[in-house]
């Protein structure tokens, strides 16, 4: 593969993680358990959406094709999306959403930290821009996971259920293929196994404080970076892309 095409795929991945997560977080609009949390989650959704847009803009430049960020977001189909499987999982209850956000924001925190030293200046800049927001997402979600774990018996059980539900998608977040190997050798990206080690250490610390054991899960599911998604992504894209698909070529 030519260098730009490789980087293009990598940047699309980063954009897609944020896009799909932003979409899921926005689902909490007017549905939060406390009005303050409605605001917190829309805030987080906005952050992620902003990051997605910046990555899509870079992807457009790398593609060499006459298109815009909206085309990448609204006109690609399921198999072309490269987001990790975790972000497309349903929100479920508040415990499930907070665990999902915790796992994901911790991943982004370590990924962006590593990318600060990328030999690709744009990637380094985008990571620098995103890291502050992601640290806040991590702080917010970890505070909530602790709060719910140590709250009532019911909230603790819901956190445990969420972990069993979502932990099967962890390996997929850190999955790599020939694109990563290529970018690691040029110093643009990093070995995600290093990120995983740091991530695991954070998780052990948090769940230790929660007094909850990290589960062993069966049926580990991977495939995001190959465009092999869970059945949820189709529905997410269907809703998200509806207007652009229904009115091809229209300007909004």
């Amino acid at each position, binding site marked *: 593969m030519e260098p730009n095409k490789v980087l293009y795929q990598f940047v699309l991945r980063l954009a897609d993680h944020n896009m799909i997560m932003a979409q899921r977080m926005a689902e909490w*609009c007017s*549905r939060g358990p406390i009005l303050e949390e409605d605001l917190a989650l829309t805030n987080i959704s906005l952050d992620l*959406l902003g990051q997605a847009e910046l990555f899509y803009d870079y992807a457009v430049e790398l593609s060499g094709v006459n298109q815009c960020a909206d085309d990448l977001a*609204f006109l690609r189909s399921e198999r072309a999306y490269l987001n990790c499987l975790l972000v497309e999982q349903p929100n479920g209850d*508040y415990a499930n959403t907070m665990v999902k956000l915790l796992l994901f924001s911790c991943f982004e925190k370590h990924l962006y930290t590593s990318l600060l030293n990328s030999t690709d200046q744009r990637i380094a800049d985008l990571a620098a821009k995103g890291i502050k927001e992601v640290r806040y997402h991590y702080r917010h979600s970890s505070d909530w996971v602790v709060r719910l774990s140590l709250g009532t018996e*019911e909230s603790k059980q819901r956190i445990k259920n969420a972990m069993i539900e979502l932990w099967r998608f962890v390996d997929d977040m850190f999955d790599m293929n020939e694109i990563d190997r290529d970018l690691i050798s040029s110093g643009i990206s990093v070995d995600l196994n290093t990120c995983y080690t740091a991530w695991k250490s954070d998780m052990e610390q948090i769940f230790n404080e929660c007094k909850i054991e990290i589960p062993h899960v069966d049926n580990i599911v991977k495939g995001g970076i190959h465009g092999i998604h869970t059945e949820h992504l189709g529905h997410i894209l269907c*809703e998200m892309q509806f207007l*652009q698909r229904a009115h091809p070529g229209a*300007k909004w």
Partner: protein
Amino acid sequence: MFIMTEEEKLEQFNATIEKDGKIEPNDWMPEQYRKTVLRQMTQHAHSEVIGMQPEGNWVLRAPTLRAKKILLAKIQDEGGHGLYLYSAAETLGEDRSEMIQQLHDGKAKYSHIFNYPTLNWADIGAIGWLVDGAAIVNQVSLQRTSYGPYARAMVRICKEESFHQRQGYEIMAKMMNGTDAQCEMAQDAMNRWWWPSLMMFGPHDKDSWHTQESMRWKIKRASNDDLRQRFIDKTVDQAHVIGLTVPDKDLKFNEETKHWDIGPINWDEFWNVVKGNGLCNHKRMAHHIQFHNEGKWVRDAVIQYGAKLNEQIKLN
């Protein structure tokens, strides 16, 4: 310590109102004033929060990244405004949970406008341009309301509202400049939201019994009809600039008064919606009740956690 009689307290209260001063939470106030301001603030807060629903209905389907960003920010602002207003209302001694209970019981109302459905993307434009536009006219006036916390909340809100209206107008303008299908959608939304937006200002002055008292105590600073006319005058021009037809065959510019004269407002529709028979009354309440109830375990957990933390702090 100098203790005032009831008459002296009332005199001081009236004097403050007279010189456009502010009544603060710890000040003496007539019970009716307290009740009226409390009711108005809580209903205003409820309106902001319920208003998140019709707009939230399209946030997942916003047609561009920019549109989605802006709509999310707008909805977030609305939630924030609800919070400022609940905050201000709580200074009068009522808990937010009591206010929510009254909303669920149907004892507290919210703006009737949010009982209309958002049927297509242009409705989001119409809400930003017309509904927020009407709200802005009202809120600018309320910045001078006599109750301190309410006035301060209004100043904050007004600073944040201006992009809301621009967002809505931009959506309409873009659609009117687009495909035939987009133009049709925009005009359709205009047809459905114009009259309900005019009704947001409340009944005509001659039919509004609340107004007199509210104006005497400077809770309200301008009459319903005055505010309505302000809104009509600026909005009709905006509609014409982008090629939208105002759905009023009696609409006519009055050369003498230099105002736009409108046709008769269908007050039956207004009262019908206020009484609970609008298209979305049941849905808006059912939604609010459902998610409030579903969130109870979260609030309980949070309270328990807070209590445990406090225990720990005491023991250390």
